[in-house]
């Protein structure tokens, strides 16, 4: 009788708060090992059903037996091999292939088994696949078998030496990851291994730049890193590790326990990072611009890894097609994605809350403080929206409620006013922009309200119609303004060097807002909207009003901007250009 994995109540509470120590990560990893074995069982059953057996299924069978032998000799080592994200990713893709009626890549298990047997000195003979002239040993490296060919090679090992086909013979002891301390053996390229050490605490992580099963992210893997590139990654990860160990201990130990692989991504203009539920333990990232951002990226992506581990164990989300607002994305997101995002930000908030006290330079303090405030503000409303969506299971509701409760704990040290104001404004800008892009209102209701306004009728106690999400319903042309508002804390030095003339695409009202003249900006946006109903000008007007002392009208902008815009636009289509502030006052 099989039992199932369980998560202790304490571990659940720790994870829900955004944390989770190495013991908790150990519980997640233990479940991942069983998950891999379960998926291996699925693939093995599929291999059994292939009749007559193919070379690939024969290789799979031999590999399975070799893994069984290796596991009997050293269960811990084989558990580590099976828990590599390479293997998880392969097993996942096998399941996907089986579900779509395609043959799975049975042969890859030969590479996995050989990689497990070689370090243990276990002799074996089996066929293994060659792709592009390379035969991978996942977690160790790859043997260059021939130039750019696909096919099979016979592997034969006596535990001391590995023979590949008829022409390559290498000592097993040289088939190790490349930690930079030795010249590579002929035919061998070890996967770059980074040993980051700080204050006696170590993190060993592979920089996987070759295995096809980890080239699975929205951005491509940066393959075949040069020695200089590997050195740069080593330095960046070492510096980030020092920061984590010295100031973010809550994250450092668990990351070392739960992240065996970093996948470098091809860089774009912006920094990108990702995880995949298929590849538990792998963080994919382009090279971050600084050690601080590298550390934040590790914290951020490790949150996703932990939540993926929890979701593998416990259903937190119910089936739903519902989409909603995610403050970190420009598009409406499925609720599962929103849960992933808000959970990541519980870690990011904690990171910046510490980092704002660690930094010593004024610009860095502003940056850290504003990012702390920016994301701290979002955890509560996003968690609240999830809790009221009916999208969570009972366990999911417990998880999110605990996460929300933790986020509500008061912070003793206030955020500097400039950072707080910038963060709140950027948050408002994002929310209103998203609403004008994706929220629409019932056309008949809009027309009725427009007519009522034009007839001078009072709105009275009438409740206003709720909007509905309609993706990309409108185009909002406000990117230059939004980027400048965020640049105040993202890159304060650059922002201070800029003048409005440096950003010619800014509208005159935007320039007034960015330059800090909110009163003049209100007048300019008002004039612009009297001329034509422009979504970007409506958002600008709302932002400018939020810089001035509070008025009874102001909350209307935050609560009903899509409706305001549509009623205003409806009247404009009929030739009547209403004053935006008077219209907002009518709605209050």
């Amino acid at each position: 009788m099989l039992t199932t994995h369980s998560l202790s109540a304490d571990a659940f509470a720790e994870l829900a708060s955004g944390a989770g120590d190495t013991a908790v990560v150990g519980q997640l990893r233990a479940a991942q090992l069983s998950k891999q074995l379960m998926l291996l069982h699925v693939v093995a059953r599929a291999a059994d059903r292939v009749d007559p057996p193919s070379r690939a299924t024969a290789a799979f069978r031999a590999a399975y037996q070799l893994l069984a032998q290796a596991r009997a000799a050293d269960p811990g080592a084989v558990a580590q091999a099976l828990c590599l994200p390479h293997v998880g990713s392969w097993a996942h893709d096998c399941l996907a292939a089986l579900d779509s009626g395609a043959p799975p890549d049975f042969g890859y298990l030969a590479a996995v088994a050989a990689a497990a047997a070689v370090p243990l000195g276990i002799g074996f003979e089996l066929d293994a696949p060659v792709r592009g002239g390379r035969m991978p040993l996942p977690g160790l490296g790859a043997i260059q078998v021939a130039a750019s060919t696909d096919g099979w090679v016979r592997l034969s090992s006596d535990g001391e030496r590995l023979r590949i086909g008829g022409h390559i013979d290498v000592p097993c002891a040289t088939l190790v990851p490349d930690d930079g301390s030795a010249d590579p053996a002929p035919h061998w390229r070890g996967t770059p291994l980074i040993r980051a050490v700080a204050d006696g605490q170590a993190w060993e992580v592979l920089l996987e730049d070759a295995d096809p099963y980890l080239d699975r992210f929205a951005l491509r893997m940066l393959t075949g890193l040069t020695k200089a590139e590997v050195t740069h990654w080593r330095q960046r990860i070492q510096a980030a590790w020092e920061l984590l160990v010295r100031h973010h201990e809550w994250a450092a130990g668990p990351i070392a326990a739960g992240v065996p692989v970093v996948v470098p991504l091809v860089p774009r203009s912006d920094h990108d990072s990702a995880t995949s539920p298929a590849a538990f333990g792998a963080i994919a990232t382009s090279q971050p611009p600084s050690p601080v951002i590298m550390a934040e990226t590790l914290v951020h992506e490790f949150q996703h890894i932990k939540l993926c581990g929890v979701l593998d164990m416990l259903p937190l989300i119910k089936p739903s097609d519902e989409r909603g607002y995610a403050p970190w994305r420009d598009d409406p997101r499925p609720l599962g994605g929103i849960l992933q995002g808000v959970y990541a930000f519980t870690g990011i908030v904690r990171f910046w809350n510490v980092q704002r006290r660690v930094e010593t330079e004024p610009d860095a303090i502003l940056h850290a403080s504003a990012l702390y405030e920016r994301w701290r503000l979002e955890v509560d409303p996003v968690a609240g929206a999830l809790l009221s969506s009916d999208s969570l299971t009972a366990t999911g509701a417990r998880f999110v409620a605990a996460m929300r409760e933790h986020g509500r704990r008061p912070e003793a040290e206030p955020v500097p006013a400039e950072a707080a104001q910038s963060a709140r404004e950027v948050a408002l800008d994002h929310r209103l922009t998203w609403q004008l892009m994706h929220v629409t209102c019932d056309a008949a209701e809009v027309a009725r309200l427009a007519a009522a306004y034009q007839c001078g009728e009072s709105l009275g106690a009438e409740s206003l119609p709720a909007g509905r999400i309609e993706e990309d319903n409108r185009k909002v042309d406000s990117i230059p303004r939004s980027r400048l508002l965020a640049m105040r804390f993202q890159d304060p030095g650059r922002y201070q060097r800029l003048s409005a003339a440096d950003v010619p695409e800014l509208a005159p009202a935007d320039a007034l807002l960015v330059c800090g003249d909110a009163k003049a900006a209100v007048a300019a946006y008002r004039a612009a909207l009297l001329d034509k109903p422009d979504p970007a000008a409506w958002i600008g007007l709302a932002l400018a009003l939020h810089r001035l002392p509070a008025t009874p009208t102001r909350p209307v902008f935050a609560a009903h901007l899509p409706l305001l815009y549509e009623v205003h636009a409806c009247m404009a289509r009929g030739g009547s250009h209403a004053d935006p502030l008077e219209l907002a006052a009518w709605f209050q």
Partner: protein
Amino acid sequence: MSQQKQELNSVIPDLRELSLERLAELGDSVLAHSIALYRQRLKETGMPLNSFTARI
């Protein structure tokens, strides 16, 4: 013990102590429920098996 203090049982069978030979001998039915739940979960959370790269 209150409900809050109880362990949460997952849908993943604990196979850690099972040898691979024994795992191979398990029929389809023993793990079928857990595997079906796993497949279902992936689909329910908006992560279809064939495009499994989404972040947030």
